[in-house]
């Protein structure tokens, strides 16, 4: 497909924005490799990370190709600074304990799974192809992490208390899941992606259903946190990028 301006710029920016969510969250999950509380989770977290990194790779490659200015997917991932990233604040939050990690993953997947499902009806064939895979993969993430939220919320006093703390700390970042930036709104108008804002009801239902079984309350948020979609991040992203981009910054152009 080819696109005329201003749609083309907005679409490239949107693909990179979505790619940023998947790359950053994938990197966060990969930090668990070798540190998970049990072997089974040491397999599951990097496997989920792999799904997200694969999705990021697809989105970045397509953005680079559409843009046609000689950038590669690696240039997009490794050669931008924090202010140029458009990922949600939610996905850059540090892993915290296992309760934080599974809750963050559930929050993200419960919004993105219906988003990709609705994007299957949009007009760009390549993006539909990515969406078809993401729908299946994120459904697994919802199930796996939803089960853990229930186990921990309905577990011991200690696990329930940690789960409540994770909700308290992460819920303020969830409003941004439904706040597209200007480029994304252009793409929604042009019928290229589904409207993230339209997924809120499905997300609310998924979270409420799981929280009910987990004996957790959905908190009221007076001051939701946002800014990532405009490139205004928390301190955590800079630290993450310093590790993610280390090799390419130290040995420019390195490949293997």
């Amino acid at each position, binding site marked *: 497909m080819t696109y005329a301006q201003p749609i083309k710029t907005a679409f490239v920016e949107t693909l990179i924005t979505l790619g940023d969510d998947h790359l950053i969250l*994938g990197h966060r999950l990969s930090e668990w490799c070798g540190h998970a509380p049990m*072997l*089974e989770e040491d*397999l*599951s977290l990097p*496997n989920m*990370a*792999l*799904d*997200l*990194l*694969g*999705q990021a*790779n*697809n989105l970045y490659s397509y953005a680079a190709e559409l843009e046609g200015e000689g950038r590669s997917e690696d240039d997009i991932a490794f050669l931008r600074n924090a202010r140029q990233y458009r990922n949600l604040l939610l996905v850059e939050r540090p892993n915290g304990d296992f309760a934080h990690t599974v809750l963050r993953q559930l929050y993200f997947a419960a919004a993105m799974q219906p988003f990709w499902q609705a994007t299957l009806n949009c007009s760009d*064939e*390549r993006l*539909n*192809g*990515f969406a*078809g*895979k*993401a*729908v*299946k*993969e994120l*459904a*697994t993430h*919802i*199930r*796996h992490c*939803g*089960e853990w939220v*229930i186990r921990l919320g309905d577990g011991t006093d200690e696990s329930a208390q940690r789960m409540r703390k994770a909700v308290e700390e992460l819920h303020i970042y969830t409003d941004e899941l439904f706040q597209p930036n200007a480029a994304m709104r252009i793409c929604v108008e042009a019928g290229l992606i589904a409207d993230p804002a339209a997924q809120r009801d499905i997300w609310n239902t998924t979270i409420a259903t*799981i929280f009910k*079984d987990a004996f957790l309350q959905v908190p009221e948020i007076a001051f939701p946190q946002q800014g990532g979609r405009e490139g205004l991040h928390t301190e955590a992203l800079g630290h993450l990028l310093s590790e993610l981009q280390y090799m390419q910054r130290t040995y420019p152009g390195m490949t293997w």
Partner: protein
Amino acid sequence: MVEDTLSRPASMDQARAWRVAAGVPDPEIPCVTVADLGILRSVEIIEGVAEVALTPTYSGCPAVIAIELAVETALLDAGFEVRIERVFSPPWTTDWITPEGREKLRDYGISPPAKTSTSKMGMFSNDEVNCPRCSSPDTRKISEFGSTACKAQYVCKACAEPFEYFKCI
């Protein structure tokens, strides 16, 4: 059905190119070929070049590049010029694993996916998985994830054999 979406070999060259590509084993699960898994979508000869369409199983499957290289190498060795295309749509499903592929997986000790892929969002739901050794349905999931993204770990409660299950997607 998968056969409908695969291009039929129209010429002898095309038939030969298909056979060469189809014989390439999966690098992670070498008991099955790319054709058995249904990831080889089509092989066409266009202006003397073998154009091969392959589809990834999972978005982040690390074997994708190895598979593309192996197919390319096999065709080059057979004297073809090759162009590999990575296709995403329609997305791969375990329903595309051929009946022979399912048998080969079982013989290899991997339980093939439950027959039809459906949405698995229900919490704590399980596929009915049969032991690849003794065929007992009395099995228990040990781990949702295994040595590759596409497999889970199970154990048979009848014969006590631990085994891998090729997850249904």
